[in-house]
């Protein structure tokens, strides 16, 4: 049980400065609930070009990712090529991401995150954006920013969302199947089913689950948005809640609150099938290439949970500030 491997090591070669924050002035807060950008084609081009980072409208990229079935057909051979790398990504104990379908007609998006810790300054913007959007108490840090110390004694920051494990221990131990994993690899809790036994909290190796120990924060009723596993607002007393990667937004091509709320562009959200991810700056990466090039790691790989989150480890943030 080498629990804190990632926490205490800073393995991975330093990356040239070319990939640093590409200008915070470009950062525009995307508007909530805006429509899906129509020009999918250009985004697709962006996605399959062998460019590591390229500026496009993040909404456009996500739109393609969200309309996954159509997107897969549109991208054609490009996606088939990418699919191999998507499978190669699942380098954990069980090899390939279990849910990437071989059948192109049934292929859906397979969501993934890449967190570039070199950029994270620990401002907790992601945490606050999430708590605001989901009406959470202060201690319900669905995405929590941990202050870590590397073996060299330097400090870096590590946001920890739900890892959306491909083999989620939380789901396996849930006695009533309240925790489930959807077709797109998002692990969710049905709070109308959860009996509140908290076995999932015992099982999650990442401490990503938060119980409602007291009356949840009241939330205004949103017309047309009933409480659901994807939109667990308001939280339900006596049940467990956790990060949902804003599963209500993803199909509409919108960024999760934390991705949007990160002023440093640390968090990339993307799809393993089309192999594209985007951050709050609109930087587009090809996941496979990006994580290989930057020696990205998954947290507690040895536990066999096969997380869908990759970390590019931090280097010397303490000396930067």
């Amino acid at each position, binding site marked *: 049980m080498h629990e804190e491997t990632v926490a205490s090591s800073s393995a991975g070669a330093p990356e040239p400065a070319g990939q640093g924050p590409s200008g915070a002035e470009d950062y525009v807060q995307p508007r909530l609930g805006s429509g899906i950008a129509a020009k999918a084609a250009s985004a697709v081009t962006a996605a399959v070009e062998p460019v590591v980072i390229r500026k496009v409208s993040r909404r456009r990229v996500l739109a393609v990712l969200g309309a996954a079935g159509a997107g897969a057909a549109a991208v054609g051979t490009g996606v088939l090529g990418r699919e191999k790398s998507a499978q190669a990504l699942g380098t954990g104990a069980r090899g390939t991401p279990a849910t990437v379908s071989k059948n192109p007609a049934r292929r859906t998006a397979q969501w993934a995150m890449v967190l570039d810790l070199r950029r994270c300054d620990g401002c907790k913007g992601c945490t606050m954006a999430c708590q605001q959007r989901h009406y959470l108490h202060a201690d319900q840090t669905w995405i929590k920013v941990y202050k870590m110390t590397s073996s060299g004694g330097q400090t870096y920051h590590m946001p920890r969302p739900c890892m959306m494990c491909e083999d989620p221990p939380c789901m396996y131990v*849930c*006695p009533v199947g309240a925790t489930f994993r959807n077709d797109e690899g998002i692990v969710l809790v049905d709070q109308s089913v959860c009996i509140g036994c908290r076995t999932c909290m015992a099982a999650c190796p990442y401490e990503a689950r938060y*119980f409602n120990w007291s009356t949840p924060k009241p939330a205004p009723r949103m017309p047309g948005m009933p409480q659901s596993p994807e939109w667990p607002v308001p939280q339900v007393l006596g*049940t467990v809640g956790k990060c949902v990667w804003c599963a209500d937004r993803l199909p509409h091509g919108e960024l999760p609150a934390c991705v949007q709320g990160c002023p440093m562009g640390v968090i990339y959200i993307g799809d393993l099938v089309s192999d594209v991810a985007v951050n709050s700056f609109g930087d587009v990466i090809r996941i496979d290439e990006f994580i290989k090039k930057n020696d990205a790691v998954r947290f507690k790989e040895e536990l066999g949970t096969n997380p869908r989150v990759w970390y590019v480890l931090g280097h010397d943030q303490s000396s930067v500030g």
Partner: protein
Amino acid sequence: MTNTEELSDVPELPDVRAASMRPVLKPGRWYWPVVGALVAVVAVGVVAWVTQLHEGLGAAGYNNHAFWAIYIADVVTFIGVSYGGAVVSAILRLTGASWRAPLTRIAEATAVVTVIIGGSFIIPHLGRPERILELIYRPNLSSPIFWDFVAVSTYAFASIVFFFLPLMPDLAMARDRLTAANRPRLARLCGTLSCRWQAKPSQRRRLDGAIGLVAIMVIPLAVSVHSVLSWAFTLTSRPWWHESIWAPYFVVAALYSGIALVIIVVAVMRRIWGLKAFITDRHLVRLGFILAPFGAAYLYLTIADFLPGSYVGENGVANVFAQVLAGRYALWFWLFVFAGLIVPLLIIALPWTRRAPFIVTAAALVVGSLWIKRMVMVVAPANYGRVSGVFGSYHFTWISACVTLAGVAAIPLLLLLVFRVVPILSVTEMEEMAARKEQEAMREGADRALAEIERRHDAGESLDVQVEEAEMTPVGRADA
């Protein structure tokens, strides 16, 4: 085990029927006030639980770094002590230890009562107890918790059957006594429950077979319950919970604390209902002898559990062990080691403390300390932040304390109520033992006479031997 030394323990008591019915017919003046007080404690617990339902589990001291705590420790403790009663009775039955006869009823009743209380403690543990039936209609078979539910319910059912089977003949006896004492309603109840028992040899044979079968089944069943209970912890990757030794560790802990509880209950019952003539000090000392090896085994398993993790210093386990052995939980842990293992073992080992009052003290120490042990074992790994390496904490609140005390009070309460209806001693069994002793004595007398004849024959003396006429009616059967 049916040598004369064993049998000499079985008291020859024609009034065993009267004594076993005393709690039913004349429970004593203290009875209702005590029952009332216990009901009050349970009621306070229920009020506390309702408050907790309203305010959330936070009111019981729970938080994100103590997501499992006191109620799970209670579940493990209560279901654990239940094992003692069932297995003491089952093992003593299977090995034919005749001195068990006056103890089995009390032991089996304790098993039933505590497994029911332990099972119910899952209810305050849950955040949404009203959804508990989902375990039946939408179970997830890969969850250890679902299998806990299956195992505990099966075991509870088996222990009720195990309590009920040997009770049937006694209920028939109770029916007759109650009819004589002009208590027709209770008599009718006993009559119904006794399933028309008439002490026919065919009935007797079938009942003996059934008791033997259930006694055999109860042992593996109880082993499985405590193993499955431990797997609720060990099937997570949490440091110190994820230990392969925990299943046998739980089984031994259950036996150890369970036998201790049987000692306490037996001692209390014989005191309050004047059963000293049937349950002697030697019974308690013998139970102490059964307790001791399990204490030794538990001590051994504790060392085996802690040594590898603390020696290797692996991140996680070593952090938790450091806090348990020499950190924030150390006081509680060492209290358990001394009060729950070393002192009781010494009390039983040293000849001058090997007396009933000391044995009962040892048993009380064991039960209390094992609850502390279970608290430490549940809370410490839950407290440990697996990403940050920082420990959280759990604090009792009046709610969690009152709910737990209600569970503790429910044990004597339910036992007092049970023995208001059923005979407290296994009358039939004790009479059988007495009869066997009688036969044994007769056979011995015959043997002696034969030897005398042989001797005289060899010596060429007269063979005119006067064989004493033995009492042929078994003791206590005269009025049957």
